[in-house]
């Protein structure tokens, strides 16, 4: 009971923290998107607090942490009145009525989510990357009130997991103090909010029955689902990476600077979670450049957009990796030494690309079940129906291809990222993007339109009668 109360309280504070942050970007999005995004943003902000306290060398006591969280929440909501009115207006005008045909998917999802939440709460973090890194550091941080604790006096020759950005360590500290011995339950909030966000994102374009089906296809990726109850960096990274693209593509449509800035901030958070995302952020820039060139925008505008896209990632990389590792951690970590120095030899790149297919995408174990096949099916149908595709699906397809080709590139640049772990989990980034591509595809939109017209025909006839 106390655990439930703690989770509710934390989620409420996270919601208002994220709500305050989103207020700065002046977004006009559906309430379902806004609520889930606020919580996600709140979780991200929470993950900075213990880290920042560590940077200023304040003891990580429960009092210091919770007071800082509350103070941040209050500080970010100085303009809450205006934001709140706008938000409530959206809620009032929103259509939240559930249709009968949404129930099968909803019940199915409830079961899948409930299992995940329970396991996330009940079981301790399992992956070795966590138990020899963020989790053990967080556990001793709660006892010794600092992230730079006795763990660093242990023989750490068998692992480099202590050299990971402090996203998970910080969240684990907060949730352990909140009464969860294994922390981790923040991951359930991320999982649920992602589903809510994606569903509302998909229903912008699709009939609810098709949106629900796409969500089931997404949730039923066994490998990715497993990481909704085993805390690790990749799932959260995939979520914020996807959100960044969502708002980047939103910016292409609406041309509002808030969308661009938010896309950059979300990419920064993704980089904070997994530092190699910085390379993917760089690879995303051509899309931005093509967009501005097409719009015949000025050079300064292109530069401003480019800065928004890259600067948060670079800043967060410098703070969480360069500064923290070199000036705070007791042992230096040579990131340079991890880079492939033989870049002229492209054979490993091809080998990695090939292995990604044979070991992962087309593997007999079915790590990703059928999502690649559904995606390919929709893509082929889409190309057959309208070869040029619509602008949204073209953008989402670019995002999909960025990860598809970007993952082998990452493995080539950083050989430490192995195929069986790093690439396998790194591919999580592609799945929400694939679903959004399908969600915006011409063929599914046409089908949705037909279903909607057919569904509403009788209603219109009755009204006319």
């Amino acid at each position, binding site marked *: 009971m106390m655990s439930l109360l703690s989770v509710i309280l934390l989620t409420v504070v996270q919601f208002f923290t994220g709500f305050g942050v989103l207020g700065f970007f002046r977004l006009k999005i559906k309430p379902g998107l806004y609520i889930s995004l606020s919580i996600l943003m709140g979780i991200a902000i929470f993950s900075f607090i213990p880290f920042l306290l560590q940077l200023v060398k304040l003891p990580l006591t429960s009092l210091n942490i919770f007071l800082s969280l509350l103070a941040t929440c209050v500080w970010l909501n100085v303009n809450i009145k205006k934001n709140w009115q706008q938000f409530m207006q959206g809620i009032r005008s929103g259509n939240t009525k559930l*249709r*009968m*045909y949404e*129930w*099968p*998917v909803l019940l*199915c999802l409830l*079961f*899948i989510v409930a*299992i995940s939440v*329970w*396991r996330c709460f*009940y*079981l*301790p973090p*399992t992956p*070795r990357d966590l*138990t*020899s*890194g963020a*989790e*053990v550091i967080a*556990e001793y941080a709660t006892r010794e009130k600092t992230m730079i604790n*006795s*763990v660093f*006096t*242990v*023989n*750490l*020759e*068998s*692992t480099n*997991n*202590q050299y990971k950005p402090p996203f998970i360590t910080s969240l684990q500290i907060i949730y352990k103090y909140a009464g969860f*011995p*294994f922390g981790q339950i923040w991951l359930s909030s991320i999982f649920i909010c992602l589903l809510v966000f994606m569903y509302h994102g998909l229903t912008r374009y699709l009939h609810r*029955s098709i949106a*629900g*089906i796409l969500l*089931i*296809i997404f949730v*039923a990726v*066994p490998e990715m*689902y497993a990481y909704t109850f085993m805390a690790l960096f990749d799932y959260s990274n995939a979520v914020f990476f996807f959100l960044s693209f969502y708002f980047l593509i939103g910016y292409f449509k609406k041309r509002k600077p808030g969308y661009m800035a938010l896309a950059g901030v979300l990419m920064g958070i993704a980089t904070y979670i997994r530092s190699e995302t910085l390379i993917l952020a760089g690879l995303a820039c051509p899309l931005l450049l093509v967009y501005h060139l097409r719009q015949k925008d000025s050079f300064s505008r292109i530069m401003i957009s480019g800065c928004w896209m890259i600067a948060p990632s670079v800043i967060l990389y410098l703070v969480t990796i360069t500064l923290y590792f070199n000036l705070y951690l007791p042992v230096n970590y040579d990131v340079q030494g991890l880079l492939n120095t033989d870049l002229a030899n492209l054979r490993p790149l091809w080998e990695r690309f090939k292995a990604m297919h044979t070991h992962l995408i087309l593997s007999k174990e*079915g790590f990703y*079940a*059928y999502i690649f096949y559904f995606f390919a099916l929709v893509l082929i149908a889409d190309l057959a129906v309208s070869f040029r595709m619509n602008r949204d699906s073209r953008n989402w397809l670019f995002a999909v291809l960025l990860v598809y080709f970007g993952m082998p590139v990452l493995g080539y640049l950083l050989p430490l990222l192995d195929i069986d772990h790093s690439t396998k989990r790194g591919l999580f980034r592609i799945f929400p993007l694939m679903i959004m591509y399908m969600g915006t595809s011409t063929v599914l939109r046409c089908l949705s339109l037909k*279903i909607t017209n*057919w*569904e509403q025909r*009788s*209603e219109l006839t*009755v009204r006319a009668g």
Partner: protein
Amino acid sequence: MLKKHLILTLATLLFLTAFFLLPHNRTWAEKLLGYGRDLPGQIKAMSKESRLSKRFGNDYTYSKSIAENMRKNGQQHALLLMPPSSYFTNAGMKYHVPEPAVFYYFTGIKTVWAVSKEAINAELYIHVRDGQLLIARGNNKAALQDSITVFKKLGYTL
């Protein structure tokens, strides 16, 4: 309208059925149902210790019992040399030795592997005799070096 909603509901149900009949999805769904069946047993075992032992099995329970023995003897601050997992397999024990960071997470005891330069500084080391885990003192550096050589030969796995 109701009739159309009913048709859409049936269509969704049909899709879901077909979807979960696909081989990989079926295996996954069976796994989920299995997780669901674990629930009543898990609710009965809510203590932190039982959850840890359930999840990590022997890796956790053996590590804990080693740590408890060390605490009983007031040796909790000593550096412990751990043999590789294959050493225990050869002795007929199922114990995958956690790496030092994980051992520390489980027990608060600092360990070292034979492949490390620090191994020679170990104050204690583990060995098995007659199926029993024994903790020996590392005062005799020659004996300790012999153990290090044997452990190194067996090789460590993560």
